[in-house]
């Protein structure tokens, strides 16, 4: 089954229990920043088994090594809830080409729609996945070693961490 991956910072979603009909907290919306009314996601395709590439893509564009958390969204469920999933005009901007090819957008037509998505995601965070920092570091190291990650595409902070001159 294919699903859409969005990286979140679990800390922002850690607040007192959200009752369904109560106003939603503003802080988590930082994790759902849109660009041109589009929310960027990456499609995991079961047949391609590209999860590691997607995680690598996210990890390799950050300015440090720390845990990474993400949720998996069912595209069918999103469509039933009135969201549109569209092919991204631009490829993703991670240092991993195969991850970039998996880039998609969820069209967010209004702030109210964004809050609706945030509420949906809030309950889905019960299935949040966590990749710890040491595993991220290992993934990047292995990818540099096997050539699947071009070290020249890393930012200066990661180059320093991985002793790349």
């Amino acid at each position, binding site marked *: 089954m294919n699903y859409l991956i969005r990286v*979140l*910072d*679990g*800390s*922002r*979603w*850690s*607040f*007192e*229990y959200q009752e369904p009909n109560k106003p939603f907290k503003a802080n988590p919306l*930082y994790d759902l920043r849109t660009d041109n009314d589009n929310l960027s996601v990456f499609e995991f395709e079961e047949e391609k088994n590209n999860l590691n590439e997607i995680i690598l893509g996210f990890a390799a564009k*950050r*300015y*440090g*090594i*720390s*845990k990474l*958390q993400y949720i998996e969204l069912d595209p069918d469920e999103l469509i039933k809830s009135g969201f549109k999933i569209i092919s991204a005009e631009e490829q993703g901007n991670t240092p991993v080409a195969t991850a970039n090819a998996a880039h998609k957008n969820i069209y967010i037509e209004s702030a109210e729609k964004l809050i609706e998505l945030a509420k949906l995601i*809030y*309950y*889905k*965070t*019960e*299935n*949040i*996945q*966590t990749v*710890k*920092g*040491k595993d991220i570091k290992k993934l990047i190291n292995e990818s540099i070693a096997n050539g699947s990650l071009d070290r020249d595409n890393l930012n200066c*902070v990661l180059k320093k961490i991985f002793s790349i001159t």
Partner: protein
Amino acid sequence: MEPVSTTNNNRFASSENIIESSTTSIYVSQQQIDPYNFIPKPIFKPTTNTVVPAQLKYVITEFKDILQSTPVEVDEFEEEDMFSIRIIDWIEKYNFAALDTIFEFYASGELNEKTISHILMALGNANNSKTYNKRLEKLEEFLKSSSPKIRYGAIIGISNLDDPEAIRYLSNALEKERIPVLKGTLKSVIKQLKKTESE
């Protein structure tokens, strides 16, 4: 017991090692100075005025500098990492004195939820066998915090320690947890620790 003097060659026995009170100078036994912990142990603690051993002032000063110059309020991963790196270095340098400082600051209300949460995450990454048990003990204690954000920090801190001993505490926390992201993170970390246990 010897009076401390500035002519003494012991690097801990300088005039700075004298713990002063308003009424008297206190002599510090050289036998009670633990070079590993860096903090001279007083043999007499006055009940009046604030007593702060000179070396402890450095621990606190460095901690305050980290808090002031590496803001945790900025919600960017890079800031989080820089803060964690500095906290870890500081803990590894000052061991138990650093841990005591953190928890005293927290108890006195000087650390907000977000800051203590980030510190708890960093506790799991410190590479310091001396303080390992205390760090694990504190992380397990903070799993029961009334603050969701602090509980989150404790869960991630335990994830970073990667010690299967913590599975039962996480499982207990999961039974009581109501907030979705904390339940999810607990499940994720329990799975991670079970994998570590089997390897």
